């Protein structure tokens, strides 16, 4: 999944790795868009030419999977965000934060 690498922070820290170089990122974007286009086109072709066999009428739609991917991703992004907003409590909600740390009991565990 050579996907999106756009993280504004990278410029700020000035610590640019291999994937943060602007040229590299452009290449990745182009590759992503191109492969999307190719598979969408292949899908349409397959469906029109009839050598693809949908299970249901729904996926008989030529770019059904592309749409499904995009829509679910959108819903998931929004849903996840909402869920996070609604159900996330401070870290000390159940336990004290100290509980999460592993004390150095100077002994090593059994």
């Amino acid at each position, binding site marked *: *999944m050579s*996907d*999106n*690498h*756009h*993280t504004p*922070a*990278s410029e*700020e*820290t000035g*610590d640019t*790795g291999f*994937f*943060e170089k602007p040229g590299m990122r452009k290449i990745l*974007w182009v590759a*992503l868009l191109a492969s*999307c286009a190719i*598979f*969408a086109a*292949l*899908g349409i072709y*397959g469906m029109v030419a009839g*050598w*693809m*066999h949908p*299970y*249901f009428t*729904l996926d008989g739609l030529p*770019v059904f*999977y*592309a*749409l*499904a*991917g*995009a829509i*679910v*991703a*959108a819903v*998931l*992004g929004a*849903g*996840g*965000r909402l*869920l*996070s*907003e609604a*159900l*996330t*409590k*401070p*870290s000390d*909600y*159940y*336990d004290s934060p*100290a*509980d*999460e*740390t592993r004390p150095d009991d100077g002994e090593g*565990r*059994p």
Partner: protein
Amino acid sequence: MSDLLAGLIQNPGMLLIVAGVIVALLPGRQLRAIAALAAIIGCYALLASYGTAPMDAPVLMGESTLFGLDLVSIRIDRLSVVFATLFFIAAGLNAIYGWLHASRMEASMGLIYAGAAIGGVLAGDLLTLFIFWELAALSSVFIVWGGGTHAAFKAGMRYLVIQVGSGMALMAGVALTVAATGETAFTAMSLTAEDGSLNIAALLIFIGFGVKAGFPLLHFWLPDAYPRASAVGAVMLSAFTTKMAIYALARGFPGEDILMLIGAVMAVAFIFFGAAASDLRRVLAYSLNSQLGFMVCGIGIGSELAINGAVAHAFASVIYKGMLFMAMGAVLTRAGTLRAAHLSGLYRAMPLTALVAFIGALTITGVPLFAGFVTKSMTISAAGYYEHMLVWLALIAATVGAVNNIGVRIFHDTFMGARSDAAKVSGDAPLPMLIAMALAAAICLVVGIQPTLLWSMLPFDYDYAAYTMDHLITQMQLILFAVLLFALARRFGLAARPRDGVLLDVDWLYRVPGRIALAGVVRGTAAAWHRLWWGIQAGVARLVKGLYDTHGPEGALARSWPVGFMALFTAVVLGLMLIVTFVAY
């Protein structure tokens, strides 16, 4: 040697458990790791020597009698052998992964845990299954505690309670079954009795399985406990418990319709939770739970293809999920945290781990050439072939969820991007960890490229072609457009990482109101009793005092009376006597 023990000890899982006890006594991590690996190989050799058998003609071994019931310690058929083999592979990978980092307890309990899982899938009857079922719970909880924090301790306690609860439900179901039928053979059963009513025995067993399989509402222990374990421990945990339950469902409830619904809900619901969780291993745990949904759906569909798909997916899932947990474990080992908010850009310091995570992401999302593609396709196809559209949709959605949770959250957000403070780590994962991850990655690739290797092991002979143009195009469309959407969202600043903190789940119910209620009941009972007991004691004390006042040496009833009084009193008694005599007559 008792019958029972003689039967059980032929089970390679049992031998592995014995080895686990021995390993606990060995000094030195290296020595323990070597011994563990040797034991795993040896036990696998034993299993291999048993060969395999078709589903309809299993080979039964290690028979014994208990309570007049026939126990079968080992049943060899293709379903059990494939799971056992898988667990051996996972155990081997775990041993290698923990070569340097597994504590004594983790090394030993890890072996026992694996042994219990192997024993469980080989078990030919419900009682033997129960024994291993509980053993798995018992050994795995120590691995949770291996996390070494107070939070891990508490999570472990909760984990143990729910796991034992699962075992007890199983036991209750078994007891009902044997009481009704006298049979303990572990074969397919049905939730509905012949007269159409609910089969309570089967239901209890179903619930027992469901807890370990992470059915929705019964799943909460999984995201609670797994993230608390140590780096090594989480890898061990991810492999066995849930897959053992999947095996049990595949054996016990193939084609049970309700499973499709349950699986579909699992597959979809948990991707949202995964998206919302901030701890990365928690993200993985939810993702694991969502993947379990695939398998549950497959079992629910129940056709040969679907069962094959479920089993194959379980196989792949153990490997890639283990691999992802390994990668996260490596990050934890190096960076000391797995809070998403604190991590990014790790690929600079840990390029190989990043690569593994990448391969893992490719596998779980189902990119062709990787194991996930072939195994997921089977289940999705089965859903399609048998016209279960809702299931089919759910599985598609789950695939997209994997793209987000694993591809974006685990791989991209952690390893890519700017270097965070936490990412200034000392180097890539230690060598044994890398070796284990590499082996896992290799398996993913081998299965992905040469799926027939796996096919031959699956329960049913079913000629399934994964690499068709249909599958390739649809799957790639799905993944690529999802990726595109996430990329665009990031590009335009629409997506943010989940908030840092605790994500509430069903466990809130028992950790907050449930806890209060339980404490209330317990305190109430105790207080009621103590009050009653104090009351009794106080009452007795009062009674004794009262008696003392009247009957004690100074009391009116015990004093020495003057003789005149006595005489008078006697006269009174006589008078009474006479009156009564006359009146009564």
